[in-house]
C-alpha cells in the first residue's frame, strides 16, 4: 500500500460531505488533482501566460518552453521515440475521433473490417460506427469470456486480411479487465491492420510503453491521471502520422497559406490547429511529474491491493454481485457491482448521504451493460489517495443501504 500521506497532496479530499469525511471512489470518471497540478495552472496564468510558437517576447518564449516541455514529459511517460509522435488533444475521445476521421477515412474502404470488443467505452465505439457507415465497412465485435476477459483465440478468429483497424481499450472502465494489448497488436499486425489503443483507464494506473506494446495509436485523457480536464494525448507512429491529413484546419497548424492552397506544419503541430491547450498541457506535465515521483509500478500495485481488499470484503455480503474478473491480479482498481433489490442510483444516493462518492449508471458502455444483462451498475474506483479505510467505509455504506431498502 502507498503511504496515507499522499492524501494530503489533494486539498479537495479534506472536506465533509453530508456530515461525513469525503471518501472519493469515482476516480475512473475523473481523478482528483494534487496541489502541484493546481499550482502549475495557477503559476502559468499568474506569471507565464502568452500564446505559443509566435511572437518574439519573453512571455511567449516561456509559454512555448513550458508547453513543449510538457510534450517531452508525455513522450518520456509513454516511451515514444520522438515528441513528433505526441499530439495534444482535448481528451481520449478527441484522439480516437482523430484516428477514425483521418487514418480511417483514408484507409478503410467498402467491405473492410474494423474490430472492437463488447467492453468498449462509447468513445471507442461510435467513431468506428460512423466510419463504418460512411465507408460501407463492417464493424465487428469480439465477444467476451464469461469472466469479462478477452480470449486471444477469439481475437485470432475475428481478425482477417480484410481488417484495417483493431481498436481496443487497455483497461475496462467497468470490468477493470486488463487486456493483452501487446499480443493483440501482434495479431493485428500479422494481418496488416493497425492497432489503436484506448488507454484512458490505463495511463493513470500502469506503466505505458508504446514501443514495447508496438501499438500504432494510443489515446488517453489528462483528467483521469491527476491532470486538468480538457487535455489529452494522441500518440501515433511517426510514419503513420506523416501520411495522415489534419482533421482541424486554421491557425498554428500551417506552413504556407495561399489563396487556394495551403501546406501544413511538420509533426506534431499539423494536428494542433488553433491556439493549443497550453495550460492543460502544462498541468498534465505536472501530473506526470507527480505520478512518476510515486512510481507507476507502485501505483499499480496499490490499486491491485485495494481492489483485492474490496473484493474480499464485499464478497462476504449477501446479495452482492461483482462483475468482471474475480482474480484481482487480472484487473485494475475498479470494482463494479450491484446489490440485490437496490437500484444503483438509490445505492449511490444512500452512499452519498454517508459521504461516499461512487458512480452509478451505464458508465458510457451500453453494449457492455447489455452483455452483463443489467441496465445499470454501481462502480467504486480507486486511486493513489484511497486507503483500506475508504474500502471499510464503502462496505459500511453498503450495509446501511441494504438495511434501508429492506
Amino acid at each position, binding site marked *: 500500500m502507498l503511504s496515507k500521506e499522499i492524501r494530503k497532496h489533494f486539498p479537495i479530499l479534506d472536506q465533509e460531505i453530508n456530515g461525513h469525511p469525503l471518501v472519493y471512489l469515482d476516480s475512473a470518471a475523473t481523478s482528483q488533482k494534487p496541489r502541484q497540478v493546481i499550482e502549475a495552472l495557477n503559476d502559468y496564468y499568474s506569471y507565464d501566460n502568452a500564446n505559443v510558437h509566435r511572437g518574439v517576447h519573453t512571455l511567449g518564449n516561456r509559454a512555448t518552453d513550458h508547453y513543449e516541455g510538457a510534450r517531452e514529459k508525455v513522450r518520456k511517460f509513454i516511451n515514444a521515440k520522438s515528441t513528433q509522435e505526441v499530439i495534444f488533444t482535448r481528451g481520449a475521445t478527441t484522439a480516437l475521433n482523430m484516428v477514425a476521421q483521418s487514418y480511417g477515412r483514408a484507409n478503410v474502404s467498402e467491405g473492410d473490417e474494423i474490430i472492437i470488443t463488447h467492453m468498449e467505452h462509447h468513445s471507442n465505439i461510435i467513431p468506428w460506427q460512423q466510419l463504418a457507415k460512411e465507408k460501407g465497412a463492417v464493424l465487428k465485435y469480439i465477444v467476451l469470456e464469461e469472466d469479462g476477459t478477452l480470449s486471444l483465440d477469439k481475437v485470432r478468429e475475428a481478425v482477417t486480411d480484410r481488417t484495417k483497424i483493431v481498436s481496443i481499450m487497455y483497461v475496462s472502465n467497468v470490468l477493470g479487465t486488463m487486456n493483452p494489448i501487446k499480443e493483440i497488436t501482434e495479431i493485428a499486425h500479422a494481418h496488416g491492420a493497425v492497432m489503436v489503443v484506448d488507454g484512458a483507464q490505463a495511463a493513470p494506473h500502469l506503466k505505458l510503453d508504446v514501443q514495447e506494446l508496438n501499438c500504432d495509436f494510443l489515446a488517453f485523457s489528462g483528467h483521469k491521471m491527476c491532470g486538468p480536464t480538457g487535455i489529452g494525448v494522441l500518440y501515433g507512429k511517426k510514419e503513420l502520422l506523416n501520411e495522415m491529413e489534419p482533421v482541424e484546419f486554421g491557425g498554428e497548424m500551417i506552413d504556407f497559406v495561399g489563396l487556394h492552397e495551403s501546406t501544413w506544419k511538420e509533426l506534431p503541430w499539423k494536428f494542433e490547429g488553433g491556439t493549443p491547450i497550453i495550460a492543460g498541457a502544462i498541468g498534465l506535465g505536472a501530473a506526470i511529474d507527480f505520478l512518476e515521483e510515486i512510481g507507476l509500478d507502485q501505483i499499480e500495485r496499490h490499486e491491485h491491493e485495494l481492489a483485492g481488499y474490496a473484493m474480499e470484503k464485499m464478497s462476504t455480503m449477501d446479495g452482492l454481485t461483482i462483475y468482471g474478473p474475480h482474480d484481482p491480479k487480472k484487473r485494475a482498481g475498479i470494482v463494479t457491482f450491484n446489490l440485490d433489490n437496490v437500484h444503483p442510483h*438509490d445505492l449511490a444516493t444512500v452512499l452519498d*448521504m454517508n459521504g461516499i462518492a461512487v458512480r452509478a*449508471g451505464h458508465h458510457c458502455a451500453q453494449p457492455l451493460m447489455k452483455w452483463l444483462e443489467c*441496465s445499470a451498475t454501481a462502480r467504486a474506483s480507486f486511486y493513489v489517495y484511497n486507503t483500506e479505510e475508504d474500502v471499510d467505509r464503502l462496505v459500511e455504506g453498503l450495509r446501511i443501504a441494504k438495511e*434501508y431498502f429492506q
Partner: protein
Amino acid sequence: MPTNNLDQLYRSVIMDHYKNPRNKGVLEENNVTIDMNNPTCGDVIHLTLKVEDGIVQDAKFEGEGCSISMASASMMTQIIKNKDVDTAVQYAHIFSDMMLGKEIDDSVDLGDIEALSGVAKFPARIKCATLAWKAMEKGVTEESEQ
C-alpha cells in the same frame, strides 16, 4: 441528519409504489406508445396509453430504473387515468414545477405525487422522477395533434 434527508427522499409511499407498482405492464388496446430513456443513467420506460375522445381511458408502463423513476411512473399512470388530455398535461407541468422547487397551487389535489416533492433537494435525481412525465406529455400531445 443524513438519515432524515434520506427519509424525505424515500418516503414510505414512494417505496410502496416502487415495490408494488400500479398499472405495470403493456396495454394491449393502446393507441399511444412511447419509449423514452434517460441517456445519462440508462433508465427506460415503455408507456402505453388508450386515449379516446380526449380522455386518457387507460395507462400502463414497463421499465427499468431506480425507485424514484419507477415510483414516479406508477403514480403518474394512477393520476392521469380518466383525466382529459389537457389535465394530464397540466399535471406534467405541475410536476415539473415541483421538481424545480417552485410553489405549487395547493388547490390541486396531487395525491401520492406530493411525496415526490423531496426529490427537488436531490438535483442528481430530478431526471429520474421526470422521465415518466415527459414520456406521457409527449404521448398525449402527439396524439391530440393528430
